[in-house]
């Protein structure tokens, strides 16, 4: 298990090699990157296996009091600021932490990254910067894996920033066109604002705890809770730190005020969206909240209430926009934001296992959907759903796989999505008041509705003549989709407690104490009815065109156009940027040039010149004037001397 740090190192090593020797490697280095991530996937299985049969005795492992899960921590010193031992000196460490949460995330990231890289071998064929794409791809995977493995906040922050910069490079991959450039810049700056919150949170914790290690921080919180804030971390600091960390998570996981960058990030290549904006990067925020759950749930856990509220609002708002947007990738982007909202909601409702379970299920299904959208885009060259229709006749396999993903996220039983969403609804019903539950159910309905809408518009209905040239994507693209489809189908099953010692996901990943799986009958029934009803409704309106929505559209027209304009977030942000930020900087630049420079600096120079001009007027050139001066001088002097002597 100590060799878990090999996983990111493989990809870190692959990236520079591809960049430098890309031209000479076969397929310009893409094989090397795939090998690296495959190696990572293999090591993941070793880590899982060695964790399963590890126990308290093995080196470096202990049952952490906070999460109650067996965690193993391996630590190595990086560098120290200030002579070791001197007062106030700080020594900074690299280190990895293995616990079920990490293993689950490792599995998700490595598997999805592998699938996407294989997929993009075909998808990105013939792109001039093919090698560079794979280099940044493996750099991103490495950074994401380090983030998941990090055992101290410093390493987490470093990986967090590297993930940000890799997403900037990948979104802005086709930087010839201005839109990707702007989208990449927007993504980086918005996430960077979140990162500021994260950094301040980390420094706040460090200032209180004295070291960057997560275990020390959780220990301090636990001591603080026990002693009601006498020593260890006081409530104020804990809440402030939790909220600041959540600010960072909101930036990365595109929660409400910071979500504007995710839809624009669709400008990047579709496999990038599949990996980054579905399965890995966006869930980093959820992972962060899960990883630092002790700090969130310390004292009376009011940060979790805020997390729940933000999650719910994001889920609702994004689901509504997804319902009306026409671009296929935008629909999937908003659906990602909505599901992230759901995960945050479930974390906010103490549904730790549910959130992680949904994270996994959503990761597989959404990656699948994005790859499906990619293959549609690959063959028909446009993203607008208006142009598509009846593609199932032309692209049967993609249609099938896409439908599986859509049904799973829609919440149709036996599929992965249903079980995880059911768990979330269960957690919300147990720990939060009914208003949350109603809104969560409404969101589930909306997500089923837009998933159905997307599925039926694209693949059902009559095939437009210009699409008949479309062909099924090559095996290199369909095979990863099929694998992900299988997972989307079968992943739900791991939630049951099977015979043997494996008692369901609840006993594997949990916070506090593991609990077996139990199925709440009435809640399950309600959600099934909602999901199936929504799909039928979608089928009728979009595939058969029997229900027309014109009447509904005219009645709620003003709500519709508000939603269609994405609640005017972009306009508001753009306005503030143009007016406030650039305004201030323009003013300061002017202030700097006009005031500080021309007045304070050149001012004295001009004054000196003026005085100089005035001073020289007394040289009149006439001799007698000077004699007069001399006479007056002597008189003055003698008076002065006379006064002093008398």
């Amino acid at each position, binding site marked *: 298990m100590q060799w878990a740090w090999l996983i990111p190192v493989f990809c870190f090593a692959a990236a520079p090699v591809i960049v430098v020797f890309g031209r000479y490697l076969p397929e310009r280095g893409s094989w090397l990157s795939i090998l690296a991530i495959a190696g990572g996937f293999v090591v993941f299985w070793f880590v899982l296996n060695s964790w399963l049969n590890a126990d308290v005795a093995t080196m470096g492992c202990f049952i952490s009091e906070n999460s109650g899960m067996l965690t193993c921590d391996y630590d190595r010193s990086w560098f120290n600021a200030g002579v070791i031992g001197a007062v106030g000196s700080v020594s900074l460490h690299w280190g990895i932490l293995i616990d079920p949460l990490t293993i689950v995330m490792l599995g998700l990231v490595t598997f999805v990254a592998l699938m996407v890289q294989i997929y993009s071998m075909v998808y990105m064929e013939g792109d001039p910067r093919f090698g560079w794409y794979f280099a940044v791809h493996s750099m991103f995977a490495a950074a994401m894996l380090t983030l998941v493995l990090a055992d101290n906040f410093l390493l987490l922050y470093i990986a967090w920033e590297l993930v940000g910069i890799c997403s900037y490079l990948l979104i802005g991959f086709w930087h010839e066109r201005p839109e990707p450039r702007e989208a990449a810049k927007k993504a980086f700056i918005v996430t960077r604002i979140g990162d500021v919150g994260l950094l301040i949170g980390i420094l706040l914790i460090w200032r209180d705890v004295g070291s960057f290690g997560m275990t020390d921080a959780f220990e301090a919180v636990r001591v603080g809770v026990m002693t009601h804030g006498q020593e260890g971390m006081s409530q104020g600091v804990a809440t402030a730190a939790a909220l600041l960390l959540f600010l960072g998570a909101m930036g990365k996981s595109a929660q409400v005020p910071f979500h504007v960058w995710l839809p624009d990030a669709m400008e990047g290549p579709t496999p990038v969206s599949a990996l980054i904006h579905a399965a890995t990067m966006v869930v980093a925020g959820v992972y962060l909240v899960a990883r630092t759950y002790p700090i969130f749930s310390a004292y009376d856990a009011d940060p979790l209430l805020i997390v729940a509220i933000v999650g719910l609002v994001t889920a609702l708002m994004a689901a509504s926009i997804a319902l009306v947007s026409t671009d296929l990738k935008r629909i999937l982007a908003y659906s990602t934001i909505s599901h992230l909202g759901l995960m945050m909601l479930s974390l906010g409702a103490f549904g730790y296992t549910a959130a992680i379970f949904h994270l996994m299920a959503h990761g597989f299904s959404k990656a699948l959907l994005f790859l499906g959208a990619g293959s549609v885009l690959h063959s028909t060259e446009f993203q607008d759903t208006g142009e598509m229709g009846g593609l199932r006749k032309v692209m049967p396999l993609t249609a099938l796989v896409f439908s599986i993903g859509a049904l799973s996220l829609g919440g149709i039983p036996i599929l992965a999505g249903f079980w995880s969403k059911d768990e979330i609804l269960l957690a919300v019903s147990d720990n939060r008041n009914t208003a949350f539950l109603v809104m969560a159910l409404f969101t589930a309905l909306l997500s089923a509705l837009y998933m159905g809408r997307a599925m039926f518009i694209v693949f059902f209905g009559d095939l437009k003549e210009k699409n008949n040239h479309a062909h099924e994507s090559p095996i290199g693209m369909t095979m990863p989709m099929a694998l992900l489809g299988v997972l989307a189908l079968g992943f739900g099953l791991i939630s049951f407690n099977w015979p043997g010692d494996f008692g369901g996901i609840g006993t594997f990943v949990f916070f506090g104490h593991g609990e077996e799986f139990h199925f709440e009958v009435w809640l399950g029934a309600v959600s099934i009815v909602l999901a199936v009803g929504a799909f039928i409704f979608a089928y009728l309106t979009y595939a058969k065109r029997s229900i027309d929505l014109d009447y509904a559209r005219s009645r709620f027209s003003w709500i519709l156009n508000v939603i269609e304009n994405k609640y005017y977030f972009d306009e508001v942000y753009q306005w503030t940027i143009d007016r406030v930020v650039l305004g201030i900087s323009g003013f300061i630049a002017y202030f700097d040039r006009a005031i500080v420079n021309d007045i304070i600096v050149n001012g004295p120079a001009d004054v000196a010149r003026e005085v100089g001009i005035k001073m020289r007027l007394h040289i009149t050139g*006439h001799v*007698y*004037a000077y004699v*007069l001066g001399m*006479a*007056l001088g*002597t*008189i003055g002097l*003698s*008076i002065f001397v*006379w006064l002093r002597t008398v």
Partner: protein
Amino acid sequence: MAWFVFILLAVLTIGGGLGVVATRNVVHAALSLLVSLVAVAGIYLVLFAEFLALVQVLIYGGAIIIVLLFAIMMTRNDEYPRITDNKQWPLAAIAALALMGILVPAFAINSVEGTHSQSASLTGIGEALFTTWAVPFEIASLVLLVALIGAIIIARSDDGARSDDAASPDDGDN
């Protein structure tokens, strides 16, 4: 008796000085200067400094006034002989009076009464001149020599032949 002579000579000196300063005509100024200097020589006599009086009359009366007159003659121009004061004269008058205001009280306050002037023997002067004051004497002769040469060089007209028509105003080429 000495009082009367002193008063007379004092009046003559002041009158001559005012004459120099106040007349419109340059030659009158030169003559009034002569009167003033001769009066000063008289005062030296009142002070029993006969040699000085002699020297005064000889050098000032004889040499300097003559040179001045030559200078006046050589620098005659169109507005000759009427000369006026420059625009600064009221200020100059005030400054002069202020100076008087300073000197008179200075002399009056710490005046030394009861002294009387005695005569100084000529041999004493000669002896002192060539013993304690020998060095200044030599330097004085040097000064005179330098002044002499300097005056010649400055006043020498560059091209010799042109010095006859000094009065022509357009002769400003050199």
